[in-house]
């Protein structure tokens, strides 16, 4: 069902620090939150930034429909994300949402959700929705080291969680592609979803393709508008350039050129 896009002033209700680099913002809508599909994102206006002219695209991490709250997982990488990570309960958050398409949510099957870095964000809501629909959920989450590993509690509610860290300080040492879930048990999976650094997604896509398993990626192209007006965020597909912000961010790798 098409959800009308809107600009709305949310109120921050909580700022939960996960680790040195990550926080989760809880943002409450004024009225009733519309239905959100996994994979959709928001565009946030960063107030008071001296170098943040454009909005910042951030995935919807999870939704608490009862309290009309949206959760946003934010990694501090530059001025914009640092200012967002400093927001406190009561502060306002100017959002355009809901933006983008969403992941396929089948009613059954064995699903592998592979996230790297802050790319784990949309996988939480996706995992929950998959479980609710009746699919089996397996997360595989990669991080640089245990210091910036996500809080896994929420993920564990929805399925099995595998972990890799580059330095081996938690889970399997190495990249997600070094984990048994991708190296050995991939053939048992019906579908792979992945979100994270480009190199990681391409590696995951390559093994999925080789194994002949459908794979959906969520791209993080540079965006100026987020709602299809500027044509800056394009990705090359078999049908020509497509907007990552409206025809994505989720693409089936079979549709992407060069993947």
């Amino acid at each position, binding site marked *: 069902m098409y959800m*009308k*896009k*809107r*600009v709305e002033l949310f109120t921050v209700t909580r700022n939960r620090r996960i680790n040195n680099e990550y926080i989760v913002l809880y943002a409450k809508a004024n009225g009733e939150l519309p239905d959100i599909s996994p994979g959709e994102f928001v565009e946030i*206006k960063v107030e008071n930034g001296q*170098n*943040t*002219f*454009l*909005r910042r695209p951030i995935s919807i991490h999870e939704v608490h429909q009862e309290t009309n709250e949206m959760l946003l997982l934010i990694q501090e990488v530059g001025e914009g994300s640092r200012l967002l990570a400093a927001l406190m309960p009561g502060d306002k958050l100017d959002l*355009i949402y809901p933006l983008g398409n969403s992941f396929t949510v089948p009613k059954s099957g064995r699903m592998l959700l592979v996230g790297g870095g802050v790319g784990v964000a949309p996988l939480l809501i996706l995992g929950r929705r998959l479980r609710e629909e009746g699919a089996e959920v397996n997360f595989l989450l990669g991080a640089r080291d245990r210091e910036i590993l996500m809080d896994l509690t929420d993920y564990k509610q929805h399925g099995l969680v595998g972990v890799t860290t580059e330095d081996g300080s938690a889970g399997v040492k190495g990249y997600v592609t070094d984990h048994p879930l991708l190296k050995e048990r991939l053939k048992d999976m019906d579908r792979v979803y992945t979100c994270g650094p480009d190199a990681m997604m391409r590696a995951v896509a390559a093994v999925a393709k080789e194994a002949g398993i459908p794979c959906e990626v969520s791209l993080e*192209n*540079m*965006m*100026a*508008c*987020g*709602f*299809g*007006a*500027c*044509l*800056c*965020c*394009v*990705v*090359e597909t078999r049908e*020509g*350039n497509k907007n990552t912000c409206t025809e994505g961010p989720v693409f089936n790798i079979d549709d992407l050129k060069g993947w």
Partner: protein
Amino acid sequence: MVKLAVDINGYLLKNPVMTASGTFGFGEEYEDFIDIGALGGIVVKGTTLHHREGNAYPRMAETASGMLNAVGLQNKGVDHFVSSIYPRIKHYDTGIFVNVSGSTIEEYIQTAEKLNGLEQIPGIELNISCPNVKEGGMSFGVHCPSAIAVTRAVRDVYKGHLMVKLSPNVTDVTEMARAVEGAGADSISLINTLLGMAIDAEKRRPLLSTVTGGLSGPCIKPVALRMVWQVYNAVKVPVIGMGGIMNATDAIEFMLAGSTAIQVGTANFIDPSISVQIVEGIKAYMLRHDITDVNSLIGGMLID
């Protein structure tokens, strides 16, 4: 009641606020946010004779109070516009202008011809100032002879309002303005983007696939205002000003400098409802200043 309508050389806009080409899609992208009919006019995405894929990704870089783009006129071609898009948007209760680009004069002519007689398209905006394409585009707009040639050629075939959009990347914008006025332009819009560039110091690479791109946003407003004022003082046809307009105050500054109408560009990305808010803001300013007719603002800057 305040009077908001402005006349751009025979065509009446219900108010002076238009949206700028390339920043407003075909209007449809904004339907969720605003009533398009509340605007004075819209200029849709740059259209060429043939389908164009545009430039490679990345096409965008944020800069201080602005952005660079290198979209490169991605569009499905004028035939697609006429057959598929026009029927979808022709119900908008506002003037729809088509921004026309080309690599050769022949392409400009053919594209303009195909837009003749579309009832809800009162005019075209001739883009002779796009910095993001290898051939044509800006090269027409930075030298008088070619600007005259393309304007005159299109004027000969196109029956509606002919707005010509100038490039700021020139030594003397008044020279260009007079040239296109002489060649038959009904109005002049400016400015298109300034040619700029951005580098990632860490990766030592340009941030755009095309290395250089077009700079827009509030950073260019002082240059845009200056050029609007210069052109206003140099030609008789109406001037449509743009460049970094973010709010009603900016819009009023452009009118005071000589704009009959203004176009809102990059600001649409940051607040998709800003164009309609600017209409409201202009009204509020007029009430506050006891101005009954918006036309009295045009070129109304006071100099001792």
